[in-house]
């Protein structure tokens, strides 16, 4: 059971520009049940990514309690559970081949060497990169690099999968294919996913539930359940209507 429970999460950034501290997150409560796909939606600067950083152990100074699969994310020992993370940029190590990039995280997560080849091959196959295992990242297009990053995140068999605007750097056509691929894989694996985005349509297409954030200070404004049947379809007119009303909600315009 990889459920996530965040209670009273508060984060203050101190910097030269903000000597008194900038309140990035103000008492955020968020709970995600096992196998749920949740999108955090909001404009930039509303603290969505900070939530991911806390969950992934990158951000260790915060107030509040964070539990994943019943285990408390401690402030100093990092995370006692496996995280898969897909960043906005692919963040592949450029000097390693695609295969070695995936093996790098398998080794970091202490996964037995005997499993590496099978896992890597299976995931590269799944994301359509079977023939590119020995290529270096610079030989791949942006979309293929991000596929590698997705394969890498799933290959560690994470308890939770965190995605930080993973398709926002891609052109829309590639991003569409990638969203469909992600949903296919998610339906097969049913990982608990937290997906950060500022794209309302993307959020409606992907999520079971959309959590809308408002900025300065970062707070949860609304929790919207998306009750569209899966598998979903880009051409679905209900998806379109839904995304229009969510967009209106986020931008503050009234729904007609």
């Amino acid at each position: 059971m990889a459920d996530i429970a965040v209670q009273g999460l508060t984060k203050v950034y101190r910097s030269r520009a903000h000597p008194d501290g900038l309140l990035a997150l103000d008492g955020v409560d968020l709970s995600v049940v096992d196998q749920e796909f949740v999108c955090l939606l909001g404009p930039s600067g509303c603290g969505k990514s900070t939530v991911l950083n806390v969950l992934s152990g990158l951000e260790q100074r915060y107030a509040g309690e964070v539990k994943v699969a019943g285990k408390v994310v401690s402030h100093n020992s990092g995370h006692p559970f496996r995280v898969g993370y897909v960043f906005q940029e692919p963040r592949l190590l450029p000097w390693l081949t695609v295969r070695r990039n995936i093996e790098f995280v398998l080794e970091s997560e202490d996964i037995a060497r005997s499993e590496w080849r099978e896992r890597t091959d299976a995931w590269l196959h799944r994301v359509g990169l079977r023939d590119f295992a020995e290529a270096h990242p610079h030989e791949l297009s942006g979309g293929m690099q991000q596929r590698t990053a997705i394969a890498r995140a799933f290959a560690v068999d994470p308890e939770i999968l965190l995605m930080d605007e993973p398709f926002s750097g891609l052109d829309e056509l590639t991003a569409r294919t990638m969203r469909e691929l992600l949903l296919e894989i998610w339906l097969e694996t049913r990982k608990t996913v937290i997906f950060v985005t500022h794209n309302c349509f993307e959020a409606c297409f992907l999520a079971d539930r959309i959590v809308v954030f408002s900025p300065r200070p970062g707070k949860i404004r609304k929790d919207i359940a998306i009750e569209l049947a899966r598998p979903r379809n880009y051409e679905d007119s209900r998806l379109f209507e839904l995304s229009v009303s969510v967009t209106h909600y986020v931008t503050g315009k009234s729904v007609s």
Partner: protein
Amino acid sequence: MAIVTEREFPIPASGNRLRIPESLSIRAASLVVLVIVWQLASIAVSAKYVPGPLPTFAALWDNAQSGALMKHFTVTMVRMLLSFAIAMLVGMAIGTVMGLYRRAEQSLDLVVMVGLTIPGLCYIIVSFMWLGLNDRAAVLAIAWTTFPAIAINIWQGVKAIDQRLIDMARVFGASNWRRTARVVVPQVLPYLMAASRFGLGIIWKVTVLVELLGRSDGIGYMLNYSFQMFNMADVFAWTLFFTLVMLVIELAILKPIERRLFLWRPEIRA
């Protein structure tokens, strides 16, 4: 649903394999032309002022036979390598600290820049005046002249480290040591390589100068000796020998290391 869209075919590999022999033959041809021009110049001016390739190689051969070549070459190499090691250590330490801490950067960047600007000759004279005409002073002077260039390269390299890749490794559970060895070091390596390049380039020039001014052996001393004797063939022979050694180090050591390390960087491989 097709998984790979048509847009995502990789960049085709260019014909690097074919170009290597071609570039080699061009280089060989340019060397041949150089030797011919040298010979022509010798005929045009006079063999006394511009000894041709044959007398030069003959002088080189004589020096090799007498054992002088090996003796002075060894002395020069030992001085160079020792100074190089010291300059690399000091340069790496200073460069790393400057790259990591803003305070260190602010207090040291001017110092390093000034260090780079002062002519090597000044360091040499000061070292000899402080420590006397001995090898300790020679090594000090050479290392002193060289380390600022190394520090600057390492400084830039440490500053250019991509924190995002380190964060990625941390999220996926890589230990502190592993992040350093597998994510940080490979990022700094190209700069380390550039630093040693710069360092060696400076060291060649300073070492002969040091030997000319304050030592009684080494290639720099022999160049000066040949100058005093007005033995132009020997001057040419020592210069030629020095150039050959530099070329061998470049082609047999530095280039292969670079090729192995940076196979993944298209701009260097090309």
